[in-house]
């Protein structure tokens, strides 16, 4: 039986990689993929703790997280298509109309 702390450690590592991707990349698509990485890190933690407590509640919650990921990907990619049609760019730092 692998200690729960190992899984949580792995989850925090994957979360950090996702945060680095969100903060450093310019390409909006890769930022969206980094968000998927973060959601997967959350799922690892949820499943590890649900396993620890011998109940499926955490796994059900992970299912809801996956549902959210699907909704977020659909809307986010729709936004990217609209953005690309209007501005001909996928770089996050060129979308600065609201910047003062």
């Amino acid at each position, binding site marked *: 039986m*692998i200690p*729960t*702390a*190992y*899984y*949580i*450690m*792995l989850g*925090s*590592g*994957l*979360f*950090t*990689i*996702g*945060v*680095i*991707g969100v*903060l*450093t*990349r*310019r*390409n909006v*698509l*890769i930022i*969206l*993929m*980094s968000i*998927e*990485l973060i959601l*997967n890190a959350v*799922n690892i933690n949820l*499943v*590890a*703790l649900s*396993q*620890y*407590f*011998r109940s*499926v*509640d955490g*796994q059900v919650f*992970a*299912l809801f997280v*996956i*549902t959210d*990921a*699907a*909704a977020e*990907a*659909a*809307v986010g*990619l*729709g936004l990217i*298509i609209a953005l*690309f*049609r209007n501005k001909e*760019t996928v*770089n*996050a730092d060129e979308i600065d109309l609201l910047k003062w």
Partner: protein
Amino acid sequence: MLPYIVFGILSAVALASGIMVITRRNAVHSIIWLIVTLFAVGGIFLLQHAEFLFAVQIILYVGGIMVLFLFVVMLVNLDVALKQAQFSRQWLLGLVTAILVFAQLAYLIYKIGAGLSLPAQPAGPEPAHNTQAIGQALYQTYMLPVEIASLLLLVAMIGAVLMAKRKLE
């Protein structure tokens, strides 16, 4: 011993391919590496006897969401973007911040100890039939959340169609 080896391999694959996702120049390569990550995470679910979640991970994430990503990348694929700088100007600050956050998390997990000071583990065997247990939880305890999630998917679908439409009237 064997679970430890499998866990080590799977987590190494997940972390390494996660790093590949955020460092690739070409977005299609990033997607391929993200699929590798998702498979490794699915393997970790399987290692914890979460078979249903493993199946959902493969079918929904790899089969559904990643294909959606691939379509959009093909749609907006820019040769110009490949030649531009891939990292934003504040990349160093972002990297340092993220690593600081990770250091805090790692320190806490290490400090609070191997037991993670979790409440005592309930006795008794783990639920035997994973899929059946999840199905019962979903349709009995979590009936209303499931309905809300289905509504969320409907709204997201309409939103995506509206966003990608050529012109808003």
